[in-house]
């Protein structure tokens, strides 16, 4: 076997001179063995003259796999470990294995002797010793000892990496590099996780929706709100025209009208999809909440209070209850039949506020003061508050329930982390707002983007992590009030505008595929006349 010269031991490779050759070859050899290429691994060790393990370690590994416990403990002491506690822990693991193997083999007296003479002084606590000895008297059908390769793996994790190269180290390093590339990719918005090792990963700006693919014209007045269903197959919009519409997203990405939901006598300010997307709630401004069946378009129930009007709506995740903010500042909960099940009085919500419920059904969120959002846990009966430095106009909850996107009068959008300690994470600026409620949302692959409407008729898109404004989409001829990013298709964005239309935005490349822009008309309704004379 070729031997390394002393000078070669410090050799470095790579353009930056930070990779030690010996380590590099060793992790490659380790990777070859992990992949099952024993011959290649052995050949590499020989050809390079760089053994994967020192001879002491090799001997140690063989002794473990052969069950030569006493010898392996002795070898352990000669391997060159500096940390006494590591030696102790490793010895304990080995002798514990010996103990269990003896027990499994029925040699109870030998096991007891091992416990007394060899293990006892290694135990971290008397509890540990007691637990082990309880095995002597209890009977078990299952084998108590783990497999020897498993023991070896545990020992490997215990020993420092300089003694034994950790398993899968090369894989880990490659994954680190890929993660860094992906995080550095500002426009990253690929559905495919096919990042190749051959070149550095970098999405171009063409991965962000930037072209109008469709204009949906079925509302007869300003569109104030819209939201894709959880499964991305439907879009629901609500309007000043007192109706809501359920749209269907076809398999080719084309959006068509499914149901027009009429019945409210006030503008419809928001909608809420049930978790299974089978039902939709709509809220008439300071009026009632209606529940609709998505497939039939039928109104299943009208929720209202005699006196105060309802201002927001939300589903409980189990689909059995409905929450609603009331203009007397309270929040109430109904069962599906319309029976009021709970009522949280006091200042819980303002007249203009969103309502969000976490996926576990426990936390309810609403704007309860000019500059603060209340997050109350209805189970634990505890409350948390997000305090802002300016007036809050709207907010939305991320799908993973860990973040809140808060829209302020500024205009400014703040990203808050609400998982654990509440803290401000990022701020997004650039869009315009002076009078209206403008909503923003998360979106794109891994929710890496933030999109918002704006009073200057454009859709604004920022990169979430860097807060950089990366897109301003023009097309609408009125304030863009709300945006929603398809949760299942990171390349599809919808916007709702005062011009009475909804625009579906997609990639530039998709536009080339469409032969013409599609325009969807309501059944016998008027469209073009709707936005003459509107601001």
């Amino acid at each position: 076997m070729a031997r390394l010269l002393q000078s070669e031991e410090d050799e470095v490779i790579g353009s930056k001179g930070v990779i030690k050759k010996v380590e590099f070859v060793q992790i490659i050899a380790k990777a070859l063995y992990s992949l099952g290429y024993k011959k290649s691994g052995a050949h590499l060790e020989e050809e390079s003259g760089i053994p994967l393990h020192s001879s002491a370690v090799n001997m140690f590994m063989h002794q473990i796999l052969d069950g030569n416990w006493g010898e392996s403990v002795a070898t352990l002491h000669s391997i060159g470990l500096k940390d006494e506690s590591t030696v102790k822990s490793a010895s304990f693991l080995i002798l514990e294995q010996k103990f269990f193997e003896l027990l499994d083999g029925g040699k109870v007296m030998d096991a007891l002797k091992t416990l007394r003479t060899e293990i006892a002084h290694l135990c971290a606590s008397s509890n540990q010793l007691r637990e082990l000895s309880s095995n002597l008297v209890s009977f078990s059908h299952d084998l108590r000892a783990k497999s020897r390769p498993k023991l070896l793996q545990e020992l490997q994790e215990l020993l420092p990496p300089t003694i034994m190269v950790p398993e899968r180290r090369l894989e880990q390093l490659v994954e680190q590099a890929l993660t860094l590339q992906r995080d550095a990719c500002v426009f990253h918005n690929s559905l495919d996780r096919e990042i190749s090792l051959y070149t550095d990963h970098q999405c171009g700006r063409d991965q962000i929706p930037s072209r109008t693919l469709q204009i949906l014209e079925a509302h007869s007045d300003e569109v104030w709100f819209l939201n894709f269903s959880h499964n991305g197959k439907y879009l629901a919009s609500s309007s000043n025209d007192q109706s809501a519409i359920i749209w269907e997203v076809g398999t080719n990405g084309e959006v068509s009208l499914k149901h027009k939901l009429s019945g409210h006598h006030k503008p419809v300010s928001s909608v809420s999809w049930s978790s299974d997307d089978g039902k939709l709630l709509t809220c008439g401004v300071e009026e009632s909440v209606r529940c609709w069946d998505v497939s039939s378009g039928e109104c299943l129930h009208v929720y209202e209070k005699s006196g105060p009007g309802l201002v927001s709506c939300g589903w409980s995740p189990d689909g059995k209850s409905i929450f609603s903010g009331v203009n007397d500042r309270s929040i109430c909960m109904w069962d599906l039949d319309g029976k009021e099940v709970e009522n949280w009085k006091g200042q819980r919500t303002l007249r203009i506020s969103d309502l969000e419920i976490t996926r576990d059904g426990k936390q309810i969120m609403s704007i309860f003061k000019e500059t603060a959002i209340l997050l109350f846990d209805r189970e634990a009966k505890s409350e948390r508050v997000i305090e802002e430095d300016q007036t809050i106009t709207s907010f939305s909850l991320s799908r993973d329930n860990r973040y809140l996107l808060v829209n302020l009068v500024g205009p400014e959008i703040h990203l808050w982390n609400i998982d654990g300690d509440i803290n401000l994470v990022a701020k997004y600026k650039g869009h315009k707002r002076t009078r209206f409620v403008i909503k923003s949302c998360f979106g794109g692959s891994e929710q890496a983007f933030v999109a918002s409407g704006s009073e200057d008729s454009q859709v604004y898109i920022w990169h979430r992590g860097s807060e950089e404004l990366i897109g301003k989409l023009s097309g609408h001829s009125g304030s863009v009030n709300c945006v929603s990013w398809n949760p299942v298709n990171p390349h599809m964005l919808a916007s709702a505008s005062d011009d009475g239309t909804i625009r579906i935005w997609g990639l530039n490349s998709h536009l080339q595929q469409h032969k013409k822009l599609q325009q969807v008309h309501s059944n016998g309704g008027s469209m073009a006349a709707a936005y003459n004379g509107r601001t």
Partner: protein
Amino acid sequence: MGRIFTLDLEGNVYSCKYCHTHLALFEDILSKRFLCKHGEAYLFDKVVNVMVGEKEERNMLTGMHTVVDIFCVGCGSIVGWKYEAAHEESQQYKVGKFILERWQLLP
């Protein structure tokens, strides 16, 4: 024109006389001794539901000031102005405060 965002004030409220949007609380009046071309005007510490116009240099009875006109978000009517800067030391107390013209307000 979009879903107008307004805050509701509690207590004794001055509202826009055209659309009744809340503008300020009685208790936030700092002084009632201001004048505008339509008569009385009050200086307020805090005013809500207004949008601002362009900055302007205006020569007023008390000297040169930088002001922005303020408009009711509900109907767009001009309801007064906000002091952005004062050129004289004695007038600095007005900076950041709002004037609402009495004739624009209810009650």
